[in-house]
């Protein structure tokens, strides 16, 4: 004979402990994800900014006497890594040439060729105009020392040889001006 169902259906209370553990696990993840939402994962901050620039001694296209960074001390240096096969480099070329002409002796502009042939570079400069030397970088040793990820990348080095700023991608007039000012060039 059945005694009948005597078990009571107890309503389960909202489990606060599970909620707390869930929050402890999820909250840091959400925080990390939201903090990095605005970050471009392809732009990695250079550890060289604020430090002394790696020295180099490279010969310019069509020349034999090497240009060393040490010999450029005393004036800000705009060091532009570029290649003729790189479309953004082509886009910023005219700006760099006109800035180099306008600033004259107040700053040094130097190009460093990144994985490109010397003949191609000379033909490009003859066609597009040039106002400063472009240096040949055998084995990309200087590009590696500056931590180049791709071209164009431009370093702004102050008169004491410290890297004041780095620009990834093509320069425009306003970013060029802002970064020249960071490297100690009075407006």
């Amino acid at each position, binding site marked *: 004979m059945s005694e009948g169902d005597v078990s009571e259906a107890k309503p389960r209370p909202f489990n606060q402990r599970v909620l707390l553990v869930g929050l402890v696990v999820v909250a840091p993840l959400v925080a990390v994800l939201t903090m990095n939402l605005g970050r471009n994962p392809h732009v*990695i901050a250079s*550890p060289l900014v604020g*430090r002394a620039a*790696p020295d180099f001694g490279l010969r310019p296209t069509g020349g034999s006497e090497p240009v060393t960074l040490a010999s450029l001390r005393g004036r800000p240096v705009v060091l532009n890594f570029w290649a003729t096969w790189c479309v953004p480099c082509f886009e910023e070329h005219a700006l760099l040439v006109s800035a180099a002409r306008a600033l004259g002796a107040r700053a040094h502009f130097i190009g460093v060729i990144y994985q490109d042939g010397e003949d191609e570079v000379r033909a490009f400069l003859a066609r597009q105009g040039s106002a400063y030397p472009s240096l040949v970088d055998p084995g990309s040793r200087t590009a590696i020392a500056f*931590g*180049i990820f791709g071209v164009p990348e431009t370093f702004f080095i102050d008169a004491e040889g410290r890297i004041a700023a780095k620009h990834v991608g093509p320069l425009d007039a306003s970013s060029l001006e802002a970064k020249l000012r960071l490297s100690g060039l009075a407006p």
Partner: protein
Amino acid sequence: MRHPGASLRRTPCLALIAATAWLGAPLAIPQEPSAGGEPSRVVGPPRGSALAGEALTARAEEVAGLLRCPVCQGLSVADSPATMAVNMKAQVKDLLARGYDQEQILVYFEHSYGEFVRLEPPLRGVNWLVWLGPVMALAAGAAVVAWTLRSRRRAAEEPLAPLPGPDTLPDDPKLARHVRRVRELAYGWPHGRPPESSS
């Protein structure tokens, strides 16, 4: 004269500084003014022995395997066919031939590219989380499973509360009276008491 409590109050402050220094350890690569395109200016004179021949080629492959190719994400310098990776591998080989050891070479590349260039994050600062996080999560999961199993087993071993028998009555005297009455009517027990207990 200094207050005697001053040194005590400074202790947590020192601990904080120590913790900050520990977390700041990724910056512990040679600082200025040693930066330079010449590796010896970054990592000092070679610490290992100069390699040559097949040993050099094999070691270059190993060390290049620890470096991330900067132009192709997710590939090591040893595995990437990109010109930049080929150039970096050539420099690794060159440095090994000049007697630089593995750590010096990694630090040299790290000096210009940052920690990004190491395929394996070194054990320092917040990187400990990357290495220990999964182990800690696994341990925490195992602890939860063990705790659940133990509490379940304990619940199974616990003696069940005795079922109410025919002579069990509620504590409430009014309710007990009603139960007795129901038993009297339903089973014909005098005064609601089971026959054997009534005798």
